[in-house]
């Protein structure tokens, strides 16, 4: 691979990775607090995309307003899922919560099929077309047969750059929220010891609800950026990104927010690089994520930044 293609792939990989990171944070935050893998997370991602789609097509809202509203709705949906499905079984064995999460995932997918129909819709015309145009840096312009042709130069879509910027802003906000606000402090306390936190007068259910809302909002942001990049919207679109983000979260060390970001970025970059190096194996890109997961877990079971759980005997 020449340096130009390498850089091109790197930018694309970084942007894909930051999408994985946005989704992975939702998994890791909920796990950090409840020790629950929220399998419905990928479906909240999907729902957010549908919300954005309908806000533009049915409600005729401008795209930026639709995006903000869709993200807020995703947050509300996450909060509601916790209230209805997980809160009643908070003290049940962990396996019950896990099965409930799978149930919620199936429920949301089927709900989407019934309400929105299973036929894929296009997201292409929803957001400004300029987002999908290519940015070209460097290189010389030549005129051949009356058409402009760019020779050399690094190219990547505008959306890659926007994804990176949006993801960076979201991550900075999240960091600030967790480490600099009072609610964030309560979240950290809950993740360390849920019972003691409630004994210190903190309304734990509300803090947990807030965690779901925040994680879902990030998934919503990820979903919309994803749909601009891959503009096919259908009820099962959340499954693969959700699974890969889960891989990223486990890979980085589940329960650790920096771990989820790191895991997402590494996964995105290696995935794009692998396709770049071996274009013939492009069909295996999804399998590749799981292959990485197996390797990492066999070497470092707690993930890159995860802390091994010390079990007292």
């Amino acid at each position, binding site marked *: 691979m020449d340096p130009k293609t390498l850089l091109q792939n790197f930018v694309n990989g970084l942007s894909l990775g930051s999408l994985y990171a946005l989704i992975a944070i939702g998994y890791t935050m909920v796990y950090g607090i409840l020790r629950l893998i929220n399998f419905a997370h990928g479906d909240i991602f999907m729902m957010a995309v549908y919300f954005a789609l309908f806000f533009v097509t049915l409600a005729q809202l401008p795209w930026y307003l639709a995006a903000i509203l869709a993200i807020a709705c995703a947050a509300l949906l996450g909060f509601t899922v916790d209230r209805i499905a997980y809160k009643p079984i908070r003290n049940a064995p962990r396996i019950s919560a896990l099965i409930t999460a799978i149930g919620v995932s199936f429920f949301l997918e089927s709900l989407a099929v019934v309400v929105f129909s299973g036929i894929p819709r296009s997201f292409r015309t929803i957001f400004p077309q300029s987002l999908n145009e290519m940015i070209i840096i460097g290189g010389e312009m030549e005129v051949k047969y009356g058409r402009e042709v760019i020779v050399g130069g690094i190219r990547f879509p505008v959306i890659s750059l926007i994804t990176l910027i949006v993801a960076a802003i979201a991550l900075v906000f999240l960091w600030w929220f967790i480490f600099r606000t009072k609610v964030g402090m309560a979240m950290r306390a809950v993740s360390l010891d849920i019972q003691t936190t409630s004994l*210190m007068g903190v309304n734990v259910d509300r803090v947990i609800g807030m965690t779901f809302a925040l994680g879902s909002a990030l998934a919503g942001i990820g979903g919309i950026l994803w749909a601009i990049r891959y503009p096919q919207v259908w009820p099962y679109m959340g499954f693969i990104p959700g699974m890969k983000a889960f891989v990223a979260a486990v890979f980085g060390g589940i329960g650790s927010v920096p771990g989820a970001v790191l895991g997402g970025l590494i996964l995105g970059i290696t995935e794009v690089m692998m396709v770049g190096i071996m274009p013939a194996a492009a069909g295996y890109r999804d399998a590749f994520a799981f292959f990485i997961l197996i390797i990492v877990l066999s070497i470092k079971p707690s993930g890159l930044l995860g802390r091994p759980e010390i079990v007292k005997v």
Partner: protein
Amino acid sequence: MSLLTLENVTMKFGGLTAVEDVTLRVEESEIFGLIGPNGAGKTTVFNMVTGHYKPTAGRILFRDNEITALQPDKITRTGIARTFQNIRLFKDLTVLENVMVSQHHTIASNGKAVTWFFKSVSRLGYSEKEREMRNKALELLSVLGLEMLANEKSSALSYGSQRLLEIARAMATGATLLLLDEPAAGMNASETAGLVDTIRRIRDDFGLTVLLIEHDMKLVMGLCERIMVLDHGRTISEGVPAFVQKDVRVIEAYLGREWVTVGK
């Protein structure tokens, strides 16, 4: 009116009766000791008072309001806070943060979740209160002699300091009744002596009432104004230290029946 009242409280776990028909009254601003051999049900009493367990039978009243079936966080907000036999600090948070978590509920814990979120993010009218919280937390830390350690991770503290921090954290909830579960466990003799002074001082200065569980008899007899002795979940003796110390049933529970006969 007693501050805390337990009326015929019973706690059963399946076939095991951990606490049976216990009646207990703690008066305002006294230091009350709950003692008894291991497994007597002392911590179970604490767990019921703080809402962690729901009693099988009986009622618990705080300032004449029933708190028997309330959620732990609601009970704390009525004014009861506790420390733990096995230290349960938030290990990854700093000393100051540990105390501030307890003040969490003192601002904007009522109202809708959405407003709560936006207030916290926008910090409208918050920064003033947050500064107050921080100052109050630092003040509490200095009362317990921990102000130098405010920015250390709580797990880096010595065992004795961690116990004091648990007391500071419980006080920060705004509690008027402190439940201390073996506050002197793991402390050396000088630390224990300091602890006795500290407990008296916070009682006097902050107008607190203290209910404590302790195995260190010297501490209990020197510090507590009244004592209740539990054995196998039942009350076997109650009264001032001098009375309890001489009570045959107490000696029997701790040392066995033979000891009583030999002693006589």
